């Protein structure tokens, strides 16, 4: 039986250095469609969120275009993320070591990984990001559809729409903060971005950050 956190395509290649396949081409394309959608949604949404950011509407061809295109990008994001969810949910199930990892967040932030438990393909931080994204995108698509007056104008009362637009903006602010954490972590932990561009990481990276996952892959290979 394979471990819970081994995804299709995960494979270790011995050598100098060792390389580990982390994301298939499909997963990477899926990720980048989601990423581009999220960035475009953040830019177009922020343009309508605060007057000081209204200038961002020029990126989309003006206010009318920004208003018209934002919900469609949202639809793309929703389905694209649904693909990621199906790919990644199992490896993001919460495990005993995740609690320990999270309790030692101070060591995480200081980069003292020798004091942390060995973790699988995703650490607790990544799992929090994954489940936050899943929840927030659900909230955003539901609240967004409720205020998509062009097509769904008659589906909700005005009071519901007011609440929806407030919830939509709060969820959007939260997801942008989660996104900042996600991007920052990928930059801070060097060697990570290659996983989503080339699809692979070095053995040393896997040893340092996801040792349990690496051990499982090695055992699986033998």
């Amino acid at each position, binding site marked *: 039986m394979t471990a819970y956190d081994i995804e299709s395509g995960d494979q*270790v290649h*011995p*050598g*100098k*250095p*060792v390389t580990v396949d982390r994301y298939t081409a499909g997963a990477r394309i899926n990720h980048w469609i989601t990423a581009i959608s999220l960035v475009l949604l953040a830019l177009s949404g922020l*343009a*309508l*969120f*605060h*007057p*000081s950011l*209204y200038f961002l*509407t020029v990126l989309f061809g*003006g*206010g*009318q275009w*920004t*208003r*018209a295109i934002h919900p469609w990008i949202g639809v793309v994001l929703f389905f694209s993320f649904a693909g990621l969810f199906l790919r990644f949910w199992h490896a993001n199930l919460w495990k005993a070591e995740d609690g320990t990892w999270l309790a030692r967040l101070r060591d995480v*932030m*200081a*980069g003292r*990984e020798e004091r942390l438990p060995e973790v699988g393909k995703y650490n607790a931080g990544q799992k929090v990001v994954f489940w936050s994204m899943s929840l927030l995108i659900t909230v955003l698509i539901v609240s967004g559809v409720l*205020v998509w*007056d*062009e097509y769904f*104008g008659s589906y909700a009362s*005005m*009071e519901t*729409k*007011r*609440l929806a*637009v*407030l919830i939509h*903006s*709060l969820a*959007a*602010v939260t997801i*942008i*903060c989660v996104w*900042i*954490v996600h991007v*920052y972590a990928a*930059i*801070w*932990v*060097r*060697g990570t971005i290659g996983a989503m561009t080339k699809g692979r990481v*070095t*053995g*040393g*990276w*896997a*040893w*340092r950050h996801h040792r349990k996952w*690496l*051990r499982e892959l*090695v055992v699986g*290979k033998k």
Partner: protein
Amino acid sequence: MANFEFVLPPAPTKDIKVGLSDADIIKRSASEVTPPAKKLPEVAKLIDVSKCIGCKACQVACLEWNDKRIPVGVNVGSYDFPPDLTPNMFTVMKYTEWVNPETKNLEWLIRKDGCMHCQDPGCLKACPAPGAIVQYSNGIVDFDHDKCIGCGYCIKGCPFNIPRVSEVDSRAYKCTLCSDRVAVGQGPACARACPTHAIVFGPKDEIKQHAEGRIKDLKSRGYANAGLYDPPGVDGTHVMYVLQHADKPEIYANLPKNPRISPIVDLWKGATKYLGLAAMGAFAVIGLVHHVVTGPNRVSPEDEENAEKLTGSKQ
């Protein structure tokens, strides 16, 4: 004189010289404005429901002046036509058949629905497009359609559910209080067309005086609760009603009793806007500071060696 004597009061609709320009703007959506030093006298339109005969001349005049047409519709079981405001129909007569529980009389309450031109306009507060909604110092709330993006936030901000977004050009429309007529010293088209002078227009203080006279008259005729509808929750309006039953505005086709900008809209356009930007900024700054303090988290040569040992790449 004939038996039927119907004396109109002296027409209070007087032309007031104003001349609206950008210099008269006191509020502008999604922007800050320096209030003009010289303010225009506040104007108001008074709709005396007790004098309305439901002829719809105001609706016709509105369509005519604004050069709008509405398609032939269907009867929905009342005289209301169209049944609700549309992007082309800025005002709609709302007919209510109400049995007065005290007198058992059937009263036909006809309220002319449309923009109330709130002193504290919820539409303007909710609008994200700079300058798409403005308020002039005389109180008129006007839409600048060239700047409108069609998001419909104005409808969510409005306590009276007035603006309508056009499916044709995706821009929001509502009564302008005939700002283009007022700017050249003319009263609104609806007021000009009203055959019973149920709609009158002029400086707000004078119009309120006129309303007092009407209320006195109604009270003398048994309407003990007659009164003026100038709701304080939105700091008063520049379209006001004389109601026979001012204690029960809701009987007039759901005219809200205490209209105010929804607290949800206040929260959305107030704290959320500023705390949201602050939160996003804080996360970005924390990331930056963390990177400067901690430095990058790099994989060491020992990590690579350990991986090689584990995979058997190294003997």
